[in-house]
C-alpha cells in the first residue's frame, strides 16, 4: 500500500522529522486561502500515487495567493498517469543550500532492511546507484539490534565528510533523524520509505521536502486507520477488500477467456498456456481453497462480463473433492444461464463421482490441462 506524500509527511512530523509548513487543499479556493495563511512564495504539489510529478510538469511554484489559485485550477483539471488530481499539498517554499537522500528498503536477497544514504538528493536513487555507486552508502541493518546510535552517528559523519561545513550539532540532528526514521519504517511495516530530498537549509538544519512510503499489505491489520480507497473508485475498493477478506486475488485483463482456478502458480501457468496458444485471458483469479459454495460465489464475478466468450474452470482436487466442486457448478447453472460456453478441466479426489455430476448437466470434463486450454480457445473463437 502506497501512501500519499501528505500522509507520509504527517507521519514524519509525528516522528519528529521536520517538514515544511503547509496544508492540503481540495479546491483552488482552498489553495488560495492556504497560500494567504502561509504568506510568501509557495509550492503546489498534486497528491498522486504515481511518482515523477516533477518530470510531468505538475509541481508548481507561485509567488502570490492569486497566482497559486490560478495555477492550481489547471492542475485540478488534469490527470497524472490516469489518476485524477483531487488534492494539492500547498507548502511554504524553502530556501536550501543542498539536498540529501535518505531511504530504507528491504533487501529481499538477504531478508533484512537496508538504509541508503547519499549526499546527493533529489535524484532517482536507482539511477544514482548505477551511475555513481560511490555516492550511495548502503547500510544493512540487523533487525534484532536495529539501527544503533553509533551506526547513525557514523552515517551522519559520512555525510559531513561529503558535505563539509556543517557544525557538530547538525551531525547530531542527522543522527537523531536517522534513528527516528528507522523507528518509523519498522513501526509502519514499510517495504520502502524515502525522504528525497532531505533539504539542508541555510543554517544547516534539515527538512524533509518530499516523502514516499510503501507499507506491507500483509501488515494492514496493524494499521487499519490507513486502509481506504487510494486512486481507485469506492466500488473497486470494496470489491478488492471483499476478495482480500476471502483470500482471493482477482486481476482484470483485456481478453475474452475467463479463468476460474485455485492456486496462484497453476493459474499463472494456465494464463501462460492460453497466451502461448494464441488466446487472450480475461482475468486472473486465484481463489483460496475451493469448495461447493466457493465455486458458486466465484461464478458471480463472471456473471456480468459482456466481453466473455468462454469460461475455463480448472479443478485439481487435492484436499478438496471433484464431486463437491461439480455440485457447485451444477448449483450455479441451475440458478443462472450464463451466455458463454463453459469448459471444465477436472482431475483428483473423487474424479469419477465429479464426472458423473457434470455429465448429468451435459458437461464433459477434460482431464488434460493442455486439451482444456485448447478447448477453451476454440470455444471462444466459435463464439465470435
Amino acid at each position, binding site marked *: 500500500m502506497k501512501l500519499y506524500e501528505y500522509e507520509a509527511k504527517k507521519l514524519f512530523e509525528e516522528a519528529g522529522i521536520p517538514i515544511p509548513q503547509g496544508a492540503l487543499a481540495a479546491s483552488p479556493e482552498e489553495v488560495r486561502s492556504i497560500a494567504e495563511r502561509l504568506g510568501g512564495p509557495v509550492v503546489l504539489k498534486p497528491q498522486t500515487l504515481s511518482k515523477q510529478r516533477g518530470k510531468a510538469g505538475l509541481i508548481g511554484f507561485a509567488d502570490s495567493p492569486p497566482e497559486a489559485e490560478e495555477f492550481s485550477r489547471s492542475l485540478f483539471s488534469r490527470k497524472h498517469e490516469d489518476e485524477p488530481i483531487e488534492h494539492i499539498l500547498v507548502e511554504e517554499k524553502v530556501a536550501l543550500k543542498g539536498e540529501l537522500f535518505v531511504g530504507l528498503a528491504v533487501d529481499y536477497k538477504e531478508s533484512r532492511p537496508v538504509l541508503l544514504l547519499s549526499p546527493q538528493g533529489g535524484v532517482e536513487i536507482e539511477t544514482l546507484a548505477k551511475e555513481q555507486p560511490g555516492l550511495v552508502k548502503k547500510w544493512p541493518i540487523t533487525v534484532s539490534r536495529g539501527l544503533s546510535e553509533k551506526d547513525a552517528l557514523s552515517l551522519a559523519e559520512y555525510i559531513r565528510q561529503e558535505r563539509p561545513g556543517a557544525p557538530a550539532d547538525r551531525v547530531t540532528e542527522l543522527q537523531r533523524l536517522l534513528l527516528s526514521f528507522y523507528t518509523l519504517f*519498522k513501526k509502519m511495516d514499510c517495504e520502502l520509505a524515502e525522504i528525497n530530498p532531505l533539504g539542508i537549509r541555510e543554517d544547516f538544519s534539515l527538512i524533509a521536502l518530499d516523502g514516499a512510503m510503501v507499507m506491507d499489505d500483509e501488515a494492514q491489520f496493524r494499521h487499519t486507520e490507513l486502509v481506504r480507497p487510494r486512486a481507485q473508485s469506492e466500488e473497486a475498493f470494496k470489491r478488492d477488500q471483499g476478495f482480500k477478506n476471502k483470500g482471493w486475488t482477482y486481476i482484470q485483463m483485456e481478453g475474452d477467456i475467463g479463468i476460474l482456478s485455485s492456486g*496462484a*502458480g497453476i493459474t*499463472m501457468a494456465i494464463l501462460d498456456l492460453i497466451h502461448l496458444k494464441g488466446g487472450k485471458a480475461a482475468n486472473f483469479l486465484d481463489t483460496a481453497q475451493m469448495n461447493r459454495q466457493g465455486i458458486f460465489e466465484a461464478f458471480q464475478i463472471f456473471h456480468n462480463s459482456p466481453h466473455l466468450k468462454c469460461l475455463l474452470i480448472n479443478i485439481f482436487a*487435492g484436499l478438496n473433492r471433484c464431486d463437491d466442486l461439480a455440485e457447485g457448478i451444477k448449483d450455479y447453472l441451475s440458478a443462472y444461464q450464463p451466455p458463454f460456453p463453459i469448459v471444465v478441466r477436472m482431475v483428483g479426489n473423487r474424479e469419477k463421482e465429479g464426472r458423473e455430476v457434470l455429465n448429468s448437466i451435459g458437461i464433459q470434463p477434460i482431464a488434460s490441462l493442455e486439451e482444456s486450454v485448447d478447448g477453451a480457445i476454440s470455444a471462444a473463437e466459435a463464439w465470435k
Partner: protein
Amino acid sequence: MSILAFRDTQVLIQGITGTQARHHTENMLAYGTRIVAGVRPGSGGEQVHGVPVYNSIEEACRDHRIDASVLFIPAKGVKAAALEAMQNHIKLLVIVTEHVPLHDAMEIFEDARNRGVVIVGPNTPGMISPPEKAKLGFVPTMYFTPGPIGVASRSGTLTYELVSRLTAAGLGQSTVIGVGGDRIVGLPFADALRLFEKDPGTQAVLLIGEIGGAMEEEAAALIARGEVRKPVFVYIAGSTAPEGQRIGHAGAIIGGTGGTVQGKIESLQKAGAQVGTTIAEVIERMKHTLGKK
C-alpha cells in the same frame, strides 16, 4: 534417502487444536509422520488423534525429543510461535501460514540464521519425503511416490500438477519442498539445491519457479559456480503475466528491477539447467533424460 524430513523425525504441531490443524494432523499421521506432541496454550492435557497436547513448547520438550515443528498458526501469531520454537532448540520449522507480515518474517529468519535453524515457508503446503513416509504440512499425498527426483517449488498447486505427471511417468521423488510463495522465504532454491546435491537419494532436481524476486537467478549462480553437479530441470510460471501486479503470491510480481521469466530462464540456461517453457515440455525432457530406457 531424502532431505530434512525422515522416518524418525519427531514432529511437533503448533496450534494443533485448530480445525485445519486437527484435520492435517490426522492426514500426516496416516501417512506415517511421527507426530509426538502438539501445543496450544490452555489445552494442555488434551489429545488430538492420540497426540498429547501441551501448554507450551517448553513443556512438550520435557517429555519428547522434538526435531521439527509444523506451525498451523494465524499470520498475526506466527512470529511469536516461530521464535518460541527456536528458543526451544527446534531445528526445522515448517510455516504453512499465508500473509505473514514482511517485518515479522525478517525477524524470524534472522533468528533462524543465528541459530542454524532451517525454515520451510511461509506460505507453503509444506514438504514430503515419500521414501521416508514423512510429511510435514498438507500436500495431498496421493500424487507422490518414492524415487530419485528432488523437487523445490514456489507454488503448491503447480507442485501437484507437475509431481502427478512425474509420478505417472514413473519418476518418483526423494523429497518435495514447497519453499513458499512469499517475497522472502526461509529456504530459497539455492539452499534447497545445496541439500539435494548432498543427498545420495536424489539424482536430479526439478525447480518450479515463478515471476518475481531473484530466487531463480541465485540458483543459476550456484549452478554456474559448479556447486550443483546433478542435473537441474526448471519450469517457471508467469511468462505472460502483466507487469507491476502481484499475481496471487506476494512474491510473484515483476518490478522495475527485474524478476521477469525471460531473465530467469536465460540465467538458468546459461548456467546449464534444462528449462521447459511449458509444463508438458519440462516433463518430456525429464522423461527423456531420466526415464527408464
